[in-house]
């Protein structure tokens, strides 16, 4: 455990002595802020003008505001998380520090988990920023605690799955660029996989739909928790971490 803790601390130090983490945090805060403002402005306009259309209850903040916002944040994660994971192993391979990690009295799993948890910590920080935006609305309006938490849990799981896969891809190469492009492409594929269902059917389409990271996110964004989706994300995380650990055992 000391080894894992050492890795986590070192990763965080590295994030914050280089511009990388600040760039990701700043970009995220600005873009997510813009999304949120746009959603909110539209939502306000619609609820003022067309309140009657939706009957006595008025417009529903859950479907009109939160759900699209959660999806936008998810897309933002898709773009930004490769920047977090790309350097993790690629840089170690290039610096020769993998040799340090592999010859230290530390289990492979401690290294893999340490790197994952450090990146997950950064993800949590990003989500806290989004949480501030949502909290602002919750302060003035009415938002259910449950759908909001479900949405954030979904984002955390989706982000963690991205991170686990991104870390694995980073472990395959010495080049940060290759890692970033590879990770981004994989994320994009997982994102659009359920397009198959719009023109195909049968087992293959079903499979693609199951693999799609989007179709599993929908429930969370709607405030619904489903074991099926939890299992999906958790298995992606486990597979990513397992592959990385296996990769660590192989020589270069």
């Amino acid at each position: 455990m000391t080894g894992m803790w050492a890795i986590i601390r070192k990763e965080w130090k590295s994030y914050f002595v280089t511009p990388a983490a600040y760039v990701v945090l700043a970009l995220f805060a600005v873009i997510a802020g813009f999304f949120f403002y746009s959603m909110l402005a539209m939502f306000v306009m619609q609820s003022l003008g067309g309140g009657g259309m939706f009957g006595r209850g008025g417009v529903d903040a859950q479907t009109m505001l939160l759900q699209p916002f959660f999806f936008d944040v998810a897309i933002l994660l898709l773009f930004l998380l490769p920047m977090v994971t790309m350097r993790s192993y690629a840089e170690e391979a290039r610096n020769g520090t993998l040799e340090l990690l592999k010859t230290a009295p530390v289990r492979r799993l401690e290294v893999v988990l340490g790197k994952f948890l450090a990146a997950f910590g950064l993800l949590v920080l990003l989500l806290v920023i989004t949480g501030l935006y949502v909290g602002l609305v919750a302060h003035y309006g009415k938002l259910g605690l449950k759908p909001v938490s479900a949405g954030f849990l979904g984002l955390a799981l989706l982000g963690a799955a991205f991170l686990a896969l991104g870390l694995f891809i980073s472990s395959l190469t010495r080049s940060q660029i290759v890692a970033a492009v590879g990770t981004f492409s994989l994320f994009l594929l997982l994102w659009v996989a359920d397009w198959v269902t719009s023109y195909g059917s049968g087992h293959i389409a079903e499979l693609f739909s199951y693999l799609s990271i989007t179709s599993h996110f929908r429930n969370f964004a709607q405030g619904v928790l489903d074991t099926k989706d939890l299992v999906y994300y958790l298995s992606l995380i486990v597979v990513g971490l397992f592959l990385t650990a296996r990769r660590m055992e192989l020589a270069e």
Partner: protein
Amino acid sequence: MLEVEHLTRRYGPMTAVDDISFQTRSGEILGFLGPNGAGKTTTMRMVTGYLPPTAGEVRIEGVGLRRDPLAAKRKIGYLPELPPLYPELTVRDYLRFVARLRQVPARERNNAVERAMERCALADVRERVIGRLSKGYRQRVGIAQAILHNPRLLIFDEPTAGLDPRQILETRHLIRSLAGDHTVILSTHILSEAANTCQRVIIINRGKLVAVDSPENLTRRVKQTETLLIELRGAGAAAQAAIAQLPGVSKAELIGEQDGISKLRVESKDLSTREAIARALVEGGYGLLELKEVELTLEEIFLSLTGSSLPAAASA
């Protein structure tokens, strides 16, 4: 201390390290000598647990690397060929990280870091970012991370490669000062380095162990004739002819003539031949200035042991 038995590593059909066995003695500096690509780095990587061997066994103070890798690794300090540094961290942050990674107990961590920095003369740069340090300093940080947890066995892969002459001397001095408290294995392709620094030398070529001995014994083993270097004022060619006639002289050659001083290189059988040569030169009035035995260089020993021949240019 360290026992290596039948260590072998194959990459597909290629055998990088072929059945190498050796042991270290406590507190010694053992040189690992061989040309580039001989299998030095591969062997070290297997000994440190970085690379799993295809066959063979490594034990450190009786602890099998395969059976209990964590306990075995705790006893090793390792400086790879490329010092494993994080350029974005400061020297102190980096060493603290390594101390944690190597399971130095929290209470001793600060002391261990301070001690390593002091030993490697890094106190001045403790707060500097590693990426901005000179190559010599970076190498010292690499050594500091290896000795941080006070391991019994230190393994340095080409510790002086790419350093300037002064840094090379400093690094060698540092390594020599570490022996005694630690057992040191040092790989190098620079033979004089092994001769200067190591008590024993392992010669390895094409993945195979060629010889294990002290530099002096290796010299003795290879040496069959004495090589003499003679300087004289006077006709070099005539002197050469005179020496070549003497019994016990297998070869006499004129290797230089400048400002009226001639230089000869002579292969002679033994001490009495040397005496006879001196007498002949003095009695013949060749103006003998100097006559000395040339020590065999480790280069020549190495080439003789590995069965390659010395290129003409190098022998002059």
